[in-house]
């Protein structure tokens, strides 16, 4: 029991520290990308920025509703089944990938319901449509995951990582990695981590919002992004596998932040993609065919090797 509590505490601490660091990077690095200097009031180089934002939000009271509670719950529940490192996993099971994906889908749907609730009088939001689009981006991701599962012949995330001890899956599945990464990026863009969300209209809407609900919303968005990056790490980049003498945990952290910064850079260098028809076109004409081809090729390869012993 004590060990589990310790693990929970560790996971929570890691997540909170990461949220803090990522919020700071998000503020400072995006400012530097604009050739600005970024927030600097609250002390040396604006280190206290996330803290200030946090107090700012809770200083203005607003009623929180039941949705925010569920969002908070599910954003934490994901980490019950997703391993951060080899030891930091609460429940070890054989179907952890499926369970994690289910939680993720539920979380996204909850988030959209929540954003649809806070519709301002001079604004409109078409949350239903956005849910469908964001969920449709899961289809190529699922195809890519399926081909990974076929290769490694397991649904447990831990097993997938362990099976990559020789070489990472990205070498076997470059196309799958590409589609998965683009789908992650588009989800990242739709969620609006950079303060400009598409969930609600308005040019600066991401900076808006008050109360505990906003904090939880922001927290859960970070959780989704962390989840996506960690899943990408686990599936394609070897997870917590160490290289030579470098410890796996350090490798994981390095990979995590590199991917986060790359996502931020891509987000910054691209404009707003809120044209539904274009998003759908990208998805159905590029991502899904490519990932499907990848899946079929993998499947055929495996059948040829295992069933007919051709290769």
């Amino acid at each position, binding site marked *: 029991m004590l060990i589990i509590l310790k693990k929970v505490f560790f996971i929570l601490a890691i997540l909170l520290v990461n949220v803090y660091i990522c919020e700071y990077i998000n503020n400072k690095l995006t400012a530097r990308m604009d050739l600005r200097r970024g927030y600097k009031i609250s002390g040396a180089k604006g280190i206290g920025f996330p803290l200030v934002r946090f107090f700012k939000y809770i200083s203005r009271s607003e009623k929180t509703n039941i949705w925010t509670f569920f969002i908070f719950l599910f954003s934490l529940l994901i980490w019950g089944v997703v391993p951060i490192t080899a030891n930091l996993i609460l429940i070890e099971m054989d179907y952890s990938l499926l369970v994690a994906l289910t939680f993720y889908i539920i979380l996204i749907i909850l988030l959209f319901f929540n954003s649809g609730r806070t519709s301002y009088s001079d604004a409109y939001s078409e949350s239903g449509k956005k849910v469908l689009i964001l969920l449709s981006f899961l289809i190529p991701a699922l195809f890519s995951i399926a081909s990974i599962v076929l290769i490694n012949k397991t649904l447990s995330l831990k097993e997938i990582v362990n099976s990559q001890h020789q070489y990472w899956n990205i070498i076997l599945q470059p196309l799958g990695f590409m589609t998965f990464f683009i789908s992650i990026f588009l989800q990242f863009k739709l969620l609006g981590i950079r303060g400009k969300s598409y969930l609600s209209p308005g040019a600066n809407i991401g900076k808006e919002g008050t109360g505990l609900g906003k904090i939880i919303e922001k927290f859960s968005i970070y959780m989704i992004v962390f989840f996506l990056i960690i899943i990408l790490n686990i599936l394609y980049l070897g997870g917590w596998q160490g290289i030579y003498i470098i410890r796996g945990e350090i490798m994981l952290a390095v990979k995590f932040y590199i991917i986060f910064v790359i996502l931020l*850079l891509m987000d910054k260098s691209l404009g707003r993609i809120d044209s539904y028809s274009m998003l759908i076109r990208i998805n159905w004409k590029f991502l899904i065919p490519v990932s499907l081809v990848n899946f079929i090729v993998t499947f055929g390869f495996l059948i040829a090797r295992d069933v007919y012993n051709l290769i």
Partner: protein
Amino acid sequence: MLRLIKNFFIVFGNIFRKPHTIIYPRERIIIPDGSRGVLHLKVDPDSLEIICKGCGLCKIICSQGCITVQKRAEDKGREVLDEFCLDLSKCIFCGNCVEFCKMNAIDMSYKYQLAEFDKKNLKLEKTELVKPSGTIRDFW
């Protein structure tokens, strides 16, 4: 597609470039010559007297009515400026008063540091307008 990759590297390179930002309270943007700021009453460098005689032409010219001038006759019939008040809240910084002044007694300073909590503080008296804040450039 190539352009997107180029844009990505532009953004990436920006992280290592020097920001364009002027760090406001420390650095200041130099306002160009002839920029129009708050009115300034010129002082004769020899006698250290205000050149303005209080003819009141600027008061008539000003469309917003932000200038109030009063003159006073001293002994020997010499006319001296008694009161010169500029209501900054009304001024639109058009510079017509400077252009029309026959004595060439007023000019526009570079003063922009103007925000006030109380509207009453925006009324500048003669003593404040004479201050040499505007003679050399006072940025910010």
